[in-house]
């Protein structure tokens, strides 16, 4: 029942998820992550290109998941935040490190981590998590 374990899905999104690659509309400069292939503002007039995000971001809101869905039981408690990327898009992601250190508006940087291990097939899903950036960058 853990649909996240679908191999085709994982494969389709791996480049985007591993490398923070989204899209940008050349026409109006709006950046999209996750990638969109139709600009929400310009629609068919918008010209979409691939776009790599810098990874600079800050925490808009966060929570600590203590009751997990199937597939994530062994990782509780874990922190999830909504991150506002410097280029304008917002994204959900897990936050690594000490839960007590997480605060609203705090700068974060992306790190490459295991997201979870598929219990049945043993497939390990990697992706980006977010780490509290050090003092200088705050």
């Amino acid at each position, binding site marked *: *029942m*853990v*649909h*996240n374990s679908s191999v085709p*899905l994982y494969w389709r*999104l791996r480049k985007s998820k591993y490398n923070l690659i989204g899209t940008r509309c050349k026409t109006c400069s709006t950046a999209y992550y*996750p990638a969109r292939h139709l600009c929400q503002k310009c629609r068919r007039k918008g010209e979409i290109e691939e776009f790599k995000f810098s990874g600079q971001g800050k925490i*808009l*809101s*966060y*929570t*600590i*998941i*203590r*009751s*997990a*869905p*199937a*597939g*994530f*039981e062994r*990782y509780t408690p*874990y922190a*999830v*935040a*909504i*991150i506002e990327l410097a280029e304008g898009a*917002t*994204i*959900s*992601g*897990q936050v690594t490190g000490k839960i007590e250190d997480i605060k*609203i508006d705090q700068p974060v940087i992306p790190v490459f981590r295991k*997201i*979870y291990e598929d219990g049945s097939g043993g497939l390990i*899903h990697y*992706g980006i998590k977010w780490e509290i950036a050090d003092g200088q960058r705050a």
Partner: protein
Amino acid sequence: MVDVAVVGCGYTKFDEHWNRSLRDLSTEAGMLAIKDASIDGKDIQALYVGNMSAGRFIGQEHLGALAADQAGLIPIPATRCEAACASGALAFRKAYMGIKSGEYDMVMAAGSEKMTDVKGTDAVATLMGAGDQEWESAIGLTFVGLYALMARRHMIQYGTTREQLAMVSVNNHRNALHNERAQFRYEITVDKVLKSPLIADPLRMLDCSPITDGAAAVVLVSDKLAGRFQNPVWILGSGQASDTVALHDRQSLTEAMATRVAAKKAYEQSGLTPQTVDIAEVHDCFSINEIMSIEDLGFCRKGEGGKFVEAGKIGRDGEKPVNTTGGLKAIGHPIGATGIRQVCDITRQVRGDYGKLQVHGVKTGLASNIGGTGATSIVHILGSERPGR
């Protein structure tokens, strides 16, 4: 223009029905509505069924035909509608539009969900089907987690307190005391909410609506037939709107744009305002959603929902009684059934025949049903007077 009225309603006990199937529950709800309307099942010309996830909960799709089959309504057209947690209201709206189209004069709208055949963590995963599977479910987000993200932001932006959130659950539990079909019929206190286990900070167990099995149904008729019934309750306004499926794609984490758009339409059609509508059923899947909904529906200004609750204005004897029969928190939340259950409760309150649950002098009521974290929002306003023409 055809006008449409609700002339019958009913819902099963909302509970963990280990010994009953989706089909049993749906049939019971249908029979309750038919009996309440004093009609014959044969008079029903079409069926609309709201259900979110029977495919994953019990391996069964094709819920429209199944409900028609079990209720002995074959060969009438049967349509299953899905918009996650707003599936019930969606079925209701499509039934209403079915009559407005001139195609039918009497239809049934039903909603159902059977959630307890799978284990808890599977239910949590299934519910995330309402969110963004690729970008929210995939990182371990849960539904309560998403609402927790909204709650924290709301607390920071507007000073909403943990206590105010708790008061939402306290009010809902109190209102359910006399609701025989509610899953929880006992009072709770703010203190008890604050001491219940954290599920996704800052939300706790008693901020959350439960996992529930249940079904609800209503009978709708055109103005042509409404005269045959004693207490038709008219649909005065109906609005529906969409927003991004992923919470992180929204313009705001503390405002449901879709609710505002849907409500605006329903208010305009009905000629009513947030001030003049008598009572409301709002979507309290988590306490924060009731506070945000109170704001988005215009009962108070954005950010003042917590204070509105704290001031007792949502109580049964308050300025704007909300969830007068217990809400999702205390009645339970069988996903697809909830939107229809809300209409049932508004219908009874407007009819004025709701016994111990009756709020005095209700002429109009609003039902607000939200799918996912606000990607679908559907608002209906019902009242005792036929729409002015």
